[in-house]
């Protein structure tokens, strides 16, 4: 059904379509609209889920964990400080191999209080064993949330998935949305290690070094297998519903000599910048990284690369720029831009390309090349 919705409403609509058994939620700007909309669905009877209005994000994830280990489908949503407050349980969910799906509306971290877009919140959770995907449009937020459940719950994965959307820029932007009848696209969940009182077991008991190490390796193996599951899920989604995105979305990339790499809404903005540059005779293209974990294998050889990080690791660098350099020898220009919701236009992005200085880092609007 074609409609108009915000990014937040799109996430809520997708959640309604997959009918989680238990949803635990705590409000935080700019995520609040998701949990409000879901509360509406549950109250009106449109969605038959147990809705737990918890007293904190730590408890939101703890409640999802308690529900998920019984074999129930679970969902929660958060943002920024909420995500950091639940950090302990974010780790627990992945370690316990629970296919929880969470929407995170990317927002800066205080102090001072800033409610606008930045990726640092979710990037701080990148080593927890969660799969992470970043979306750029309202439709993509909807489609990806549907896919997230199928990927998380797939027998070859059984890991939690975090769907990230930029605060306000996407969470509160109205765009057209085609909602789906997902049918059996997301099959019923079968959790192999669900609690069974007829077959009692101890979960998370005291674990020695050898077993702990083995469990960590199992998480990594599942993470590696998830690449294939993501690809299969995308393929089936495209066949059924006619849309696909890829682990990274390419735009005029094939013959590009210089490539802009960005995530979320900045990745879409970069496409407009590419058109501008092409009109000027610059052979530009763009690549929008969608999946942060598992990190995509990108072949950037023979191209100049401009990376825009809406994040930073102090004393280290832009996290995407540094991650790309760790994987391959690439001469890139690292741009730090958009922190705390700083406005970054397609003209600005075109400017980054025109004035690129490979091997240096730019803090846009704050400091020149450093």
């Amino acid at each position, binding site marked *: 059904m074609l409609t108009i919705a915000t990014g937040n409403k799109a996430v809520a609509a997708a959640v309604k379509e997959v009918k989680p*058994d*238990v949803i*635990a939620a705590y409000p935080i700007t700019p995520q609040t609209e998701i949990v409000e909309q879901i509360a509406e669905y549950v109250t009106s009877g449109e969605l038959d*889920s*147990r809705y*737990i*209005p*918890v*007293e*904190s994000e*730590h*408890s*939101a994830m*703890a*409640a*999802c*964990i*308690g*529900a*998920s*280990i*019984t*074999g*129930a489908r*679970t969902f929660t949503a958060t943002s920024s400080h909420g995500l950091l407050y639940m950090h*302990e*349980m974010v780790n*627990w969910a992945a370690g316990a191999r629970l296919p929880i799906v969470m929407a995170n509306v990317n927002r800066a971290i205080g102090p001072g209080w800033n409610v606008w877009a930045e990726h640092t919140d979710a990037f701080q959770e990148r080593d927890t064993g969660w799969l992470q995907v970043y979306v750029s449009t309202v439709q993509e937020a909807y489609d990806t949330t549907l896919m997230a459940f199928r990927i998380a719950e797939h027998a070859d994965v059984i890991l939690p998935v975090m769907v990230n959307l930029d605060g306000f820029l996407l969470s509160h932007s109205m765009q057209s949305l085609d909602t789906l009848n997902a049918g059996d696209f997301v099959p019923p969940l079968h959790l192999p290690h669900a*609690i*069974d*009182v007829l077959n*009692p*077991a*101890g*979960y*998370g*008991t*005291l*674990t*020695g070094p050898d*077993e702990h190490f083995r469990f960590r390796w199992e998480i990594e193996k599942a993470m590696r297998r998830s690449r294939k599951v993501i690809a299969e899920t995308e393929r089936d989604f495209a066949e059924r519903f006619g849309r696909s995105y890829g682990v990274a979305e390419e735009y005029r990339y094939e013959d590009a000599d210089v490539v802009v790499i960005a995530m979320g809404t900045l990745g879409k903005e970069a496409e407009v910048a590419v058109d501008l540059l092409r009109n000027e005779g610059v052979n530009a293209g763009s690549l929008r990284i969608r999946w942060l974990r598992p990190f995509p294998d990108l072949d950037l050889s023979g191209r100049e690369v401009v990376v825009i990080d809406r994040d930073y690791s102090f004393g280290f660098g832009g996290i995407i720029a540094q991650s790309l350099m760790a994987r391959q020898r690439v001469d890139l220009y690292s741009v730090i831009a958009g922190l705390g919701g700083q406005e970054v236009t397609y003209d600005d992005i075109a400017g980054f390309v025109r004035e690129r200085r490979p091997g240096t880092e730019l803090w846009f609007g704050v400091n020149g090349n450093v």
Partner: protein
Amino acid sequence: MTEIPKEEFILKCTSACAGCPSTLILRYVLKAAGADTVLVVPACCTSVIQGIYPNTAVNVPVYNVAFAAAAACASGMSEAFQKAGKKTNVIVYAGDGGTVDIGIQALSGAFERETDFLYICYDNEAYGNTGMQRSGSTPIGARTTTTPGGKVHAKKDLDAIVAAHNPSYLATACAAYPQDLFKKVQKALTLRGSKFIHVLAPCPPGWRFSSEMTVEMGKLAVRSGLWILYESEFGKVTINGPSKAAMIKPIPIEDYLSVQGRFKGIDRKAIDALKSQADQRAKHLQKEAEGIC
């Protein structure tokens, strides 16, 4: 006599200390609850007592979870079982640190939401698993590894905090009175909503008494009036037999304090504070039981 089932859910391979009250309490909790039960256990002595992976000494499913998360985890579990049409008992089994300190926010939230579960706090009045540091539940005057001169603050009144949430059922119990505990667990599990049982767990290494004295120590706590056995069903308070007797004719609290190494060297002021706290609590409960307040 209450008929207590012979079936054991605590197997003979725990890694508990000799004379451990927590294992004794859990043994009777599970006898009362039966096989259709899941335990949620935050970080506490029971995290270790149940054994090392891949073994377990507990013959019902045990979900171990992070320190502050037990009541919230149980909320999710309870809702999921209800959604699936299952009547499985969800029981949190948590120590005093995980209840009165780090876990109290989750506890408060779960009780405010009237989560259908039973929360049992086994209270050995310190952080036992990490080697006896003070908790909010440590009584005044008690020496712990972080209060080597004796604790200067009073024990937090956990029961009053829980009572303020108007739970379906609230009771105290003691490791030395297993039949009383058994009956209370059974009764709690017949009621819907949030239930709470606070069980005193005299801890031989923590309180510094010899391991065959656990039951005796629990009895001294009750007879001296420092621990009062009572229950409150939907707010109606009943003081239980042993404590009724203690209210008429208590033994001197010094008889309880002097046999524990943790109270060695306790000063008069702290003893008076303990006495006064116990007296006030007894008076308050008596009034509640008579329906005066």
